[in-house]
């Protein structure tokens, strides 16, 4: 990054911090004039503590269900405080949460200053709406409960939207007009958000109707739920990192495949993103890439490292790694869809090649498998293997293009070539070889002709750069 760009960012940060902090202070000051501080004070303290707790400890779960319990706390507090002190009370709660422990540890000033304004503005915008609705519908009874619940849901939606736009605004003004999507799935989290608000409003009404005795019960249900979600998230993280770490460790035992799966996962992710995959689909693709060569760990090194052409038996053994993957990992429930992709990464676009047990000869592999095939072959060509030196990126591209339509999906190949070129990253031999030279090197020490993609027999491309990935 250029120095003047950094200076510009610094100036933008200072400007933003001052604007947001003073906007927050002005709103808070104005509210102190128009509204009363909630009674009793311990109630406010209780809600403030829970709000800060949830702001600081958001459980990161992939499926957005427990996205933001802090919004629920805001709505519960707003209803419990009553319309006359809801806005001031919730804004004061929000103001307390300006520092995160991380900020304090790192002595950051920009984040807390902006947070202060952002939280207050968000809370004020949403709770004002809620307070107005609550004041208008002052009839009592069960109809009032419905109004409270739905108004809180609406307010939560506003909270989410305002927060989203403010974050977007901040990121844009600091980092310029680069693509900034802090909540890339805004629409998909609106529903859980509204649900949280709805429930929050009901819980606030519960406090008004039943009294303080309801608070410990609500707290217990939420705290245990939160704990369960946390331990679930931890366990999930443990599981994923175990699998990834294990594969890495096993792979590291072999000099030639070291880092292979990680690079393949990286390329596959790149292609997936360029083809418009969403988070879940990318996750699946990444896992398929990480496990695609697990079976190879069970193939004797003598076969993998062999410099000369493989005998039929050895070739058979080599291809068995596709089945090893299935044998090993099909028992793992959550990996089942990924195993199907991984076991088809040697299947060809035209239906030839080596299919796993779920695919048949002549069947077109899934898009995931086609992406994985391109990523795998590219990395195989651009890294040094026992049977040849690494090839250049240009050569690898031309090989991919040459076999596009037969071995590879032409669309995937073009997407990959264009994103990798656009990224400016370079892989493989730095030496730009001519096509003939590269071929000569590729065939050197392997003594097998290249093409042979015509044959539907599974020894197609045996030993070629594109086939032995």
């Amino acid at each position, binding site marked *: 990054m250029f120095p003047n760009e950094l200076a510009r960012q610094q100036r933008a940060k200072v400007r933003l911090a001052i604007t947001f902090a003073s906007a927050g202070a002005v709103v808070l000051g104005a509210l102190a004039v128009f509204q009363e501080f909630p009674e009793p004070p311990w109630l406010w303290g209780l809600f403030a503590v829970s709000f800060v707790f949830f702001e600081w400890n958001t459980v990161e779960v992939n499926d957005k*269900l427990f996205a933001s319990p802090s919004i629920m706390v805001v709505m519960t507090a707003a209803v419990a405080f009553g319309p006359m002190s809801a806005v001031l009370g919730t804004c004061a709660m929000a103001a307390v949460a300006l520092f995160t422990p991380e900020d304090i540890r790192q002595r950051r000033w920009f984040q807390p200053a902006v947070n202060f304004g952002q939280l207050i503005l968000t809370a004020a915008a949403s709770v004002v709406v809620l307070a107005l609705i609550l004041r208008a519908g002052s009839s009592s009874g069960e109809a009032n409960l419905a109004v409270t619940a739905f108004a809180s849901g609406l307010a939560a939606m506003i909270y989410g939207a305002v927060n989203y736009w403010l974050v977007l605004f901040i990121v844009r003004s600091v980092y310029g007009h680069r693509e900034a999507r802090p909540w890339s799935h805004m629409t998909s989290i609106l529903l859980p958000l509204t649900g949280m608000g709805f429930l929050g409003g*009901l819980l606030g*009404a519960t406090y008004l109707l039943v009294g303080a005795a309801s608070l410990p*019960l609500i707290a217990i249900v939420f705290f245990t739920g939160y704990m369960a*979600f946390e331990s679930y998230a931890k366990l*999930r993280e443990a599981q994923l990192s175990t699998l990834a770490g294990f594969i890495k460790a096993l792979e590291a035992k072999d000099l030639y495949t070291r880092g292979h799966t990680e690079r393949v996962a990286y390329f596959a992710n790149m292609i997936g993103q360029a083809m418009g995959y969403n988070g879940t689909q990318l996750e699946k693709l990444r896992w398929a890439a990480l496990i695609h060569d697990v079976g190879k*760990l069970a193939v004797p090194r003598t076969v993998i490292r062999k410099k000369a052409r493989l005998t039929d038996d050895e070739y058979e053994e080599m291809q068995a790694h596709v089945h*090893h993957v299935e044998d090993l990992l099909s028992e793992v429930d959550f990996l089942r869809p990924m195993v199907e992709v991984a076991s088809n990464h040697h299947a060809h676009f035209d239906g030839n090649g080596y299919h796993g047990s779920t695919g048949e000869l002549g069947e077109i592999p899934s898009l995931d498998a086609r992406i994985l095939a391109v990523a795998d072959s590219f990395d195989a060509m651009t890294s040094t293997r026992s049977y040849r030196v690494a090839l250049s990126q240009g050569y690898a591209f031309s090989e991919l293009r040459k076999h596009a339509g037969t071995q590879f999906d032409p669309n995937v190949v073009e997407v990959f070539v264009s994103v990798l070129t656009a990224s400016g990253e370079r892989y493989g031999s730095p030496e730009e070889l001519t096509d003939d030279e590269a071929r000569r090197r590729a065939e050197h020490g392997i003594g097998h002709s290249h093409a042979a993609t015509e044959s539907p027999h599974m020894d197609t491309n045996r030993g070629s750069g594109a086939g032995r990935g």
Partner: protein
Amino acid sequence: MAETRLRILSYIVAAALSLTAVAFGLVGLTAAGVDQTLWIVDVAVWTVVIAVVSMIAVPAPSGSLLSLGIGAVVAASILVEDITAFGAAVAAALVIVSLVEGRFSFMRPRTDGDFLSDALAAIAYSTLFVYAADTIERLAFTDPYWGSVFAVAVGGLGWFVVRALVSAFVGVERTDLAGRYLWLLALEDWAVVVSLLAAGALFGLTWPVMGLWALAVAVLPYAFGHLAFERYHSTKVTYGQTIRALAQIPEVAGLAPRGHSTRTAELAVAVAQEMGLHPNDVNELEYAALMHDVGRITLNEPAILKAGYTDEDIARWGAQIIAEAPYLSQVSELVEQQHRPYRSPGIEFDPDVPMASKIIKVASAYDQGRVELGLSAIEALERIHQGSAYEYDPQVAASLRRVLVFRGEIPY
């Protein structure tokens, strides 16, 4: 034997509950000042509600299934005015559950032990709740809501303790599981029990003032937790599957005997449970036992095979591989220690070797004796006994013998 005793015991409890329901019915319906129609409606409604809700199982962290009925019983305890009606409804619902549960394919299977611990815990709760509510009435709490919360807390404590005690008692019936192990296992489920108690109480308090909205107030927050319990359970299952799968890589590669890791893990877990290790330790031991031979994958390197290797090398290589997974450092440690003998030259016994590692060593050696050397159960055990107090921990060897006796593999 033990199963029959449990069955008889659960029949006795079910019969006693039926009698209680009838007795409460007679007392309640004949007592002066009781609106009989209201009484019958109360009992009928709550019997159905508790019975139906009890059919829903909550997967607890320990792996056992708790009944959602806890919440319904708590709600009933607050909402049903008449003590006899409450008692009759709970007793009748428990009897229905004992008759129906597990009969249909869509239900999760539950054992007599599950029924016993749930039923006795519900009885403990009801008794304590009624007693506490009575005391509170005499103490004249200013806020009746706080009174209810207090009574639920007292009853809930009873529920939790009785359930854990009964679970441990059921374990005493089986000689292959230590009561201590089961007691600790049941204590692990406190979050689920507390969450259900609070959700039930929330419903009980809000129903009179909020009507059907009370359902949302009580059920929605609990639903988040329930979802998390479910997810936790299924992730735990797939975590186990993942480790099982990875542990088999050397076996698929032909570098370790097929099925050895699975059999060793199964036996090691049984021994650990018999010895009463902490459930968390048993969990780690299972993973370590599954992966104790994973270092053998290194043997597919021809140079290493040529240079030769020892058991210590296998253990060390395995530990190195496992250490790459950030959450398995404990397991890695256990795998590294598993080759170490009970008594090293020059010392009486080695206090640094974790019990789990000693168990894995014994289980692995037993399986090796059975499968690789083709020995009978008694011969394989004799082989362990011969190395006892030198190579193998005598305590573990004794525990292994008890497990094998329980399984009927050896006569004594």
